[in-house]
């Protein structure tokens, strides 16, 4: 902590909290946005819940483990909401043309990113936990029955969402608001190869190599192994964690380079809608 002449105390945690507070104020200021956080995960859970009830009596695959589709949809939401939660908070600054104000304060980019990550976690929990609780009430299926591996799956997918979110924010910093749609679309390109609802073996052989390069694939394969065979694949988790670290480094690198590029172009003062 350093003290300046204006009675201020400089503290990194204080600045991270200031930015987190900003995003919480924004969330609180609009009930439709808060409702939206709950809406999509709950809707997805309802659709796949009824689908699971139907397939339970019509499909051997679901009969072997009722929750295989429900767990998949909720875990996919952790990845998707983790990325979107980060990107939306970032976009709030772009829509408000607020970067010019923020970065003439002592706020450092890394502190801003810490606030974005924290807000992403909050958005994921607000969206996914109520859906998970509703699944217990409606379908008598609890994803929490996965136990400790659920924490590991959650962490891997959230970290992957953060890595994607950082890279997407970097692309928006680099290319401007024309790249805004990446925030909603990019993660879905990974959905078919992440083997969310089906095993990797169903993919064409050449695509399986792509699938095994993604941390998410290890989570969904690991989840199925746990549900069908009651085996926790620690090797899957370790590989996913290593891939996550590589993706996070790449995402952070793209973001840092784009931020520096924005300072070189003078975009921080101009960027926005």
């Amino acid at each position, binding site marked *: 902590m350093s003290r300046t002449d204006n009675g*201020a105390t400089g503290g990194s945690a204080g*600045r991270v909290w200031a930015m987190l507070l900003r995003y919480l104020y924004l969330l609180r200021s609009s009930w439709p946005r808060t409702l939206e956080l709950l809406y999509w995960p709950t809707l997805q859970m309802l659709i796949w819940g009824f689908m699971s009830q139907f397939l339970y009596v019509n499909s051997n695959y679901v009969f072997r483990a009722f929750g295989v589709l429900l767990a998949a949809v909720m875990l996919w939401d952790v990845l998707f909401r983790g990325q979107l939660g980060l990107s939306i908070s970032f976009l709030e600054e772009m829509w408000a043309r607020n970067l010019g104000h923020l970065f003439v304060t002592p706020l450092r980019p890394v502190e801003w990113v810490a606030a974005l990550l924290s807000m992403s976690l909050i958005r994921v929990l607000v969206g996914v936990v109520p859906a998970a609780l509703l699944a217990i009430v409606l379908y008598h299926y609890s994803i929490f029955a996965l136990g400790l591996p659920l924490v590991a799956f959650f962490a891997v997918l959230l970290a992957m969402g953060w890595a994607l979110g950082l890279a997407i924010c970097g692309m928006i910093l680099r290319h401007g608001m024309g790249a805004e749609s990446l925030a909603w679309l990019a993660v879905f390109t990974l959905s078919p190869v992440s083997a969310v609802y089906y095993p990797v073996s169903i993919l064409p052989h050449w695509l399986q190599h792509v699938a095994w390069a993604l941390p998410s694939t290890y989570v969904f394969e690991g989840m199925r192994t746990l549900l069908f065979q009651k085996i926790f694949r620690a090797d899957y988790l370790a590989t996913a964690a290593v891939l996550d670290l590589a993706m996070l480094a790449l995402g952070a690198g793209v973001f840092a380079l784009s931020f520096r590029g924005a300072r070189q172009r003078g975009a921080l003062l101009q960027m926005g809608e």
Partner: protein
Amino acid sequence: MLADRGMMRHIGAMPAPAIEVKTLVKRYPSAIAVDGISFTVERGVVTALLGGNGAGKTTTLSILLGLLLPTSGTVHVLGEDILRHRYRVLPRMNFSSPFVDLPHRLTVRQNLLIYARLYGLRRRRERIEALAADLQVGAFLDRPAGKLSAGQKTRVALAKALLNEPELLLLDEPTASLDPDTGDWVRGYLEAWQARTGATILMASHNMAEVERMCADVLMMKTGRIVDRGSPRALIARYGRANLEEVFLHIVRKPEPALEAVS
């Protein structure tokens, strides 16, 4: 002049200039925005950065704020190298522009609280209440910032800019789009605040009457260079004109080869 009094207060201590710029260049692929300018701004002085559109004023302010990286040159602000140690000096300076609103969806109070936290201020609520009373924004502290009039937004932006009691305040056209009454109020407030604190102000402005009234020193920019410098009175006398607006028009309209850059 109020600004002169502020300058006198600092002469005894002889600290480093508030701003010291040397051979600053900002080159884009298609244009040179700032073309090797050098200048100093002494502490406690209100200085204007004048020039037509595209002269390089906003580019210069952005570099001083650390928002824009120069192609070459050195910039020292309050004795610190802004390119290497911007986080040492950012808590001691601030910026206000009517062209960059505070986030619309948050209330004025929420916005100010967040910026007070970013500056690491203690007794944030007291500071905001005091500034709100001073700048007459207390009545709409709990209104969304997007629902304010231009005059109210300008006063709120000033409240944000003065939160950390800056030693250096950078202003980009502080009274643009304000009616004459509100503009006069803002100028009066800034003059009184500067006289009280002895802070340094560097402002870009297109309002020549404002510059004549507030500024002890003027930097004239054209096509990325500083082409003249002096007090408003000295510039008016040098060019044999009736007021600063006529000096400005003379410089802006004069063919470029006749002008020589000064540092």
